């Protein structure tokens, strides 16, 4: 294995240093990690999942099952990358995975010895005893053994971004079909985005020699496309998923040439491409062959061997056996021979379909027909293969086995919309099913095609897709390409993209994939045989059938032909059962190289045709996508778009501990009030009760309601009446859901005959607004009402406490804020100098209080003015913790009581409604369970055990009742009341037990406590409301 001195698409003037398992190596710009490893003579790159068998590089693309590596260190550690898709970069640090202590000597290789017992699903059948929890003991070891690479445990230092793209035509794949589609669509005038996962454009054309005609065609096409401003060509970009509305999820990797992105550059970019039409030109993936020990390093897809040779100038073997059941591998054989390798073709067919023998002879390539590989010899690298042929067995020495089991179209993306692929009997493969309008396919994804055919189809798809989007300028004929690098056969079918495998009948007779050669299935093992026997059996066909060693179907998950047969024997016959029972296709490669074989093997075992067996569902993503890329910038502080009030900076500067609520940042408490929240909230409560406090209430939802029918509208949406609310007055209102459960509460003030100002709770603001609009748009379009959210337009603050009026008067000396001018529930709307003030006298705390609304841009100014004017009166700010405690003392309900399960009656509010009707939720509020005597209702609870405290979430019981079950209710909100010097709480308690004066036990077993309390009125303080009036 060596790098050739000339050729390839690597830049020998740009060497790149990298390490693999600590070993320093050099590659070139244009290499993948896989090609660079091969160029450095590395064959063994990993260990398998279950048996820890040595593994090499199978493919040259994203279908790679074996060559998984971990890149980077620290927070940049990234496991399970396929070396075949990692663009080589200077300073790249790679290490192998799933081995200990080293790749060469892996202690868990011993698993191979136990392989006979580790068949598919063995764990379902054991590890069940001796005790019930025994599984957890075994599981510990199984978990340690499982997994591939190790994840980093530090935060990722790199940055990700998201972009939104729009296109008329999105084209997936840049092979001959994709490029041809792009040219046609571009000429038609469509906005085209062409997506290529590789860092180079060209698809299969890249595997042709640099001096070939196809290379010339490619560079010609790229030059033309580069000159089209309406065509954008995206490399290093994977279309990982297709979603409704023709939205393609793309991930673009940075291509800075270094392992890590440059400063400020995104490592990966999530692109959401909204396309009017999609052309799938995603090509096809070559299938490997199934034979004993087909997983040995040095066994490679024929197409990959050719790519490494022609694109990366790496000759991956000097003595090569090309094993195939179709024509396509001949190209690899011929190119390898041309490069100097000694090549033998083992063709499973009786005769190649084309006149290939002659071409082979001219190149010195030996062709053996009716020849199947029975076994591969060698452990860490293949040394020889034993072939099963009609004349007997033969052993051929080799250092590379290039295999081809036909091709599977890359239908994944076409299936993401739920369109199942369909089976094409003539070429024995699945192709995309009938796609919806605006979705087109071209090239190898539709099955066996020539390059010329792919170009023709791509052209047509490009024209059709642009026409679908209304872009229909005249388009030139496609640029044709007649491949001449191998003489075409008499039927004029070039070989390059022939996907035709041997007929299925032949496979069943004894070719690859037939159950007949599944090793050791139909016969018990003879004593003395080992699974790794290095022998060649006698020259009969039986010998080939009995080739010793595991034949892998899913190389990554270590699923063998035996596992498939076992699944069948046990009745796991549906493809989904097969997959789930054996774990086939569940690896990082999602079974790209294994699914087809597994399906056809199961079909064979069941005696059914492949389409009757069906396929598993292709799920996004096509290749794994970094979670960081999906999250983009929405991480850390940008996780959610939080909202700040106009006074936010003041709070932070003045010691507020902020707390998120409903995506608002609100002051929880002020550190100036106390060391911690418990100390601070009590101090803040005292202050409000004794002097005055200022609270930022800008977060309340605010809705402007206007129109001739505004009063009627509010009368319907609130359970209590609003029609007769006088202008200039406010009223507390409560809304129900349609099902009669309390929805939200707030206040609404009548600014004018046809104009109201509604406030909602912070948490429900958006829901209430939307619900009002819903009712107007869908239920009552006849009501002439307009609702507008003005939450952000108004800053709001509440000054509460005995001194609040004096403070208001001091802050706004020209305003008449006397009790006569501004009584409880009164409104004062005035232009005060350059400010429009809306002052509503409302109290949540039970103290005399005023809500002051002002334009958001003036919020901070008014806040500071109040703080300044209030200083002599002892005014200080208070936070939501104190607010919550004050309202508990006053018996006001809030979120913990309006929990989506309580009714008006539960909350003691039915009197507010009286005998009204015609409001939202009225009818279903009459449901029978809502008057059940066991149904809890709002009560006050006062702790009378000295030194003990009540806790939120405590469960309520009668004294002497056994503490179990769900009790009679629970404590919803709790606070220490400085005014009463007692712990008080609001709770929901069964009506039959909610008798004032009754004793109750509040049990909090989670903290080992049960506290006695007395049922009291929920209004602990000033029941007549004297403090807030006057």
């Amino acid at each position, binding site marked *: 294995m060596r790098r050739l001195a000339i050729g390839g698409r690597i830049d020998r003037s740009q060497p790149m240093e990298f390490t693999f398992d600590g070993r320093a190596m050099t590659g070139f710009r244009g290499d993948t990690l896989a090609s660079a490893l091969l160029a450095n003579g590395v064959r063994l790159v990993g260990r398998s*999942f279950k048996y820890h068998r040595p593994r090499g590089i199978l493919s040259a693309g994203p279908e790679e099952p074996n060559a998984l590596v971990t890149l980077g260190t620290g927070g*940049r550690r990234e*496991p399970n990358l396929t070396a075949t898709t990692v663009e080589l970069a200077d300073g790249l640090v790679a290490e192998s995975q799933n081995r200990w202590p080293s790749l060469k000597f892996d202690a868990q290789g011993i698993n191979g010895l136990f392989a*006979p*017992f580790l*068949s598919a699903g063995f764990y*379902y*059948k054991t590890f069940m*005893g001796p005790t019930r929890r025994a*599984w*957890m003991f075994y*599981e510990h070891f199984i*978990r*340690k053994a*499982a*997994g*591939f690479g*190790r*994840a980093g*445990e*530090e935060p*990722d230092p790199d940055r990700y971004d998201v972009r939104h793209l729009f296109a008329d035509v999105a084209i997936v794949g840049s092979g001959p079909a994709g490029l041809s589609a792009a040219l046609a669509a571009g000429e038609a005038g469509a906005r085209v985005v062409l997506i290529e996962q590789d860092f180079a454009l060209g698809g299969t054309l890249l595997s042709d020699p640099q001096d070939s005609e196809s290379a010339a065609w490619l560079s010609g096409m790229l030059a033309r496309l580069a000159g089209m401003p309406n065509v954008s060509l995206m490399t290093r970009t994977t279309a990982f998923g297709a*979603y*409704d509305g023709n*939205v393609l999820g793309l991930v673009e990797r940075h291509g800075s040439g270094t392992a890590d992105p440059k400063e400020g550059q995104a490592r990966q970019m999530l692109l959401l491409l909204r396309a009017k039409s999609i052309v799938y030109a995603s090509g096809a993936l070559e299938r490997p062959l199934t034979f004993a020990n087909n997983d040995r390093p040095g066994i490679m897809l024929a197409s990959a061997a050719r790519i490494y040779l022609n694109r990366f100038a790496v000759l991956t073997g000097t003595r090569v056996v090309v094993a195939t059941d179709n024509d396509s591998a001949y190209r690899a054989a011929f190119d390898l021979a041309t490069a100097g390798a000694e090549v033998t073709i083992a063709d499973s067919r009786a005769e190649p379909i084309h006149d290939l023998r002659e071409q082979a002879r001219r190149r010195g390539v030996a062709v053996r027909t009716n020849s199947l590989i029975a076994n591969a010899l060698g452990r860490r690298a293949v040394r020889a293969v034993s072939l099963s042929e009609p004349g007997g067995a033969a052993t051929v020495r080799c250092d590379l086995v290039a295999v081809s089991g036909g091709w599977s179209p890359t239908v994944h993306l076409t299936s*993401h919309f739920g369109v199942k692929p369909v089976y094409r009997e003539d070429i024995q493969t699945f192709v995309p099913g009938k796609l919806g309008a605006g979705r087109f396919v071209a090239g190898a994804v539709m099955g066996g095609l020539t390059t010329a055919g792919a170009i023709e189809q791509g052209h047509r798809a490009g024209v059709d897709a642009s026409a679908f989007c209304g872009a229909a300028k005249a388009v030139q004929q496609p640029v044709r390409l007649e491949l001449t690098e191998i003489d075409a056969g008499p039927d004029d079918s070039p070989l390059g993209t022939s996907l035709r495998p041997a007929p299925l009948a032949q496979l069943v007779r004894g070719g690859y994939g037939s159950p007949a050669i599944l090793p050791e299935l139909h016969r018990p093992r003879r004593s003395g045989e080992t699974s790794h026997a290095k022998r060649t059996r006698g020259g009969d066909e039986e010998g080939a059938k009995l080739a010793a060693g595991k034949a892998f179907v899913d190389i990554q998950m270590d699923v063998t032909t035996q596992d498939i047969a*076992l699944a069948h*024997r*046990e009745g*796991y016959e*549906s493809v*989904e*059962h097969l997959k789930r029972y054996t774990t086939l296709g*569940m690896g990082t490669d999602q079974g790209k190289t294994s699914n087809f074989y597994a399906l056809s093997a199961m079909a064979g075992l069941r005696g059914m045709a492949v389409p009757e067996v069906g396929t598993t*569902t292709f*799920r*996004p*993503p096509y290749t*794994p*996508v*970094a*979670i960081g890329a*999906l999250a983009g910038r929405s*991480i850390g*502080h940008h996780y959610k778009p939080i909202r700040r009030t106009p006074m936010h900076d003041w709070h932070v500067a003045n010691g507020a501990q902020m*707390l*998120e609520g409903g995506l608002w940042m609100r002051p929880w408490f002020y550190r100036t009030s106390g060391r911690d929240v418990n100390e601070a909230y009590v101090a803040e409560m005292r202050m409000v009760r004794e002097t005055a406090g200022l609270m930022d209430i800008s977060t309340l939802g605010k809705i402007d309601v206007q129109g001739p029918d505004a009063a009627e509208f509010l009368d319907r949406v609130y359970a209590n009446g609003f029609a007769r609310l006088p202008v200039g007055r406010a009223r507390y209102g409560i809304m129900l*859901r349609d099902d*009669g459960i309390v929805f939200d509460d707030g206040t609404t003030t009548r600014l004018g005959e046809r104009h109201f100002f509604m406030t909602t709770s912070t948490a429900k603001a958006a829901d209430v607004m939307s619900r009002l609009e819903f009712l107007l748009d869908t239920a009552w379009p006849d009501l002439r009402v307009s609702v507008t959210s003005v939450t952000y337009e108004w800053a709001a603050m509440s000054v509460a406490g005995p001194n609040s009026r004096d403070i208001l008067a001091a802050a706004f000396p020209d305003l008449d804020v006397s009790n006569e001018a501004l009584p409880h529930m009164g409104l004062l709307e005035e232009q005060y100098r350059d400010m429009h003030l809306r002052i509503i006298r409302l109290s949540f705390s039970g103290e005399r209080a005023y809500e002051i609304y002002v334009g958001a841009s003036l919020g901070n100014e008014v806040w500071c003015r109040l703080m300044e004017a209030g200083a002599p009166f002892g005014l200080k700010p208070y936070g939501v913790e104190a607010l919550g405690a004050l309202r508990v003392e006053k018996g006001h309900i809030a*979120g*913990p009581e309006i929990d989506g*399960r309580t009714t008006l009656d539960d909350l003691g509010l039915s009197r507010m409604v009286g005998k009204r009707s015609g409001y939202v939720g009225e009818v*279903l509020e009459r*449901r029978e369970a809502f008057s059940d005597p066991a149904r809890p209702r709002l009560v006050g609870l006062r702790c009378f055990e000295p030194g003990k405290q009540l806790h939120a*979430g*405590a469960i309520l019981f009668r004294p002497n009742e056994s503490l*179990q079950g*769900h*009790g009679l209710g629970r404590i919803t909100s709790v606070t220490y009341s400085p005014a009463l010097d007692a712990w008080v709480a609001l709770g929901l308690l069964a009506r039959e037990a909610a008798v004032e004066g009754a004793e109750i036990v509040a049990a*909090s077993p989670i903290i080992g406590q049960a506290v006695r309390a007395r049922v009291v009125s929920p209004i602990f303080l000033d029941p007549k409301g004297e403090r807030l009036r006057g």
Partner: protein
Amino acid sequence: MHGYSAFSILRNGLTGQRHWRRAWRSPDPKSAYDVVIVGGGGHGLATAFYLAENHGVRNVAVLEKGYIGGGNVGRNTTIVRSNYRLDGNTQFYEFSMKLWEGLSRALNFNVMFSQRGFLLIANSPGELDTFGYRANVMKLNGIDAELLDREEVRRMVPYLNFSEKALYPVHGALLQGRAGTARHDAVAWGYARAADAYGVDIIQGCEVTGFVRQGERIVGVETTRGRIGAGKVGLAVAGHTSVLAQKAGLELPIESHILQAFVTEPIKPLVHHVVAYGADHFYVSQSDKGGLVFGGGLDGYNSYAQRGNLGVVREVAEASIAMMPCISRLRILRHWGGVMDMTPDGSPIICPTPIDGLYLNGGWCYGGFKATPASGWCFAHMLAKGEVHPLTAAYRLDRFRTGRTIDEAGAGPFTWLQ
């Protein structure tokens, strides 16, 4: 039943795995059964097993339109817990938990129930209060629960985001130590195999196309494999309950919604527990194979498509990094959607229907997997005895009419907000 044991593994290992038998037969349907269960998912198969095991009712068929375990039992996030607070839910899910604890041995099939603990992270003081309530209910109902403070959480799951600047800081957590995960497919297969051993006919590829009536009573089903008579018909087709119920002329308060789930590439052990984020819809565990399995909220519109959209994918990715910053470089390997029967209160419906002979088990929202054993147990009781099992007394269909709803989230009556 052909027993599974270490010995049988050993014996087969030495004899080329030739002695394993089919886990369940593939019988042709008989002309009639005592009980026909529509739906070969976890609940249907469990029901069949308990009908045979607990009640001796063995003339039973389970009809599955596709392959068994192909619905939500095979596409969930495998979490098993019993940390419910409302009367009716608490006891039912704890009973289920107890059945889980003995399930592998009861079925002679390792369902890999692993009690690695379920941590529900509180992201605000208020949330911690509500978790305290939940924990109290659990304790008072004999269920293990612990309330952890921030430092205790940090010791258990140091990889979470403990930054002071986190938008949703960790304030504490509710831990249920006995909760964990199970191997979802194994649950379907284990019940199927054990039911089959009792003579239950599991008939795959058999879609119910209609119901056979005699007067007002349902006496059988029409299927793609012919008419099958039934003494009683039990529906256990959550996700598609409405579709089947419509064929029977039954109106339901159920809508179908998509819930997506995600798995990353397999990695070496990182997440031991099941960890759920209180502030947002996000929960994660690590499978025995090594993939991190996580889920989020509903896509939020009626759907039967078994696939979701990119919006929720992104939301879940964002939440995962917010909670676990080290997850950013791991890659999502696969994401898929399951179709959920969503009810207006988020709780299931297990009850006789107004139609004689027809019994309903559905409306599982996204709590169906953990409920599988208890659901099967109680539904079997109902089918065998014709009376409601006390543990499912609350899961009545008429509760929406009476107001006795069981709304843990308080989000009703909108199914997609549950």
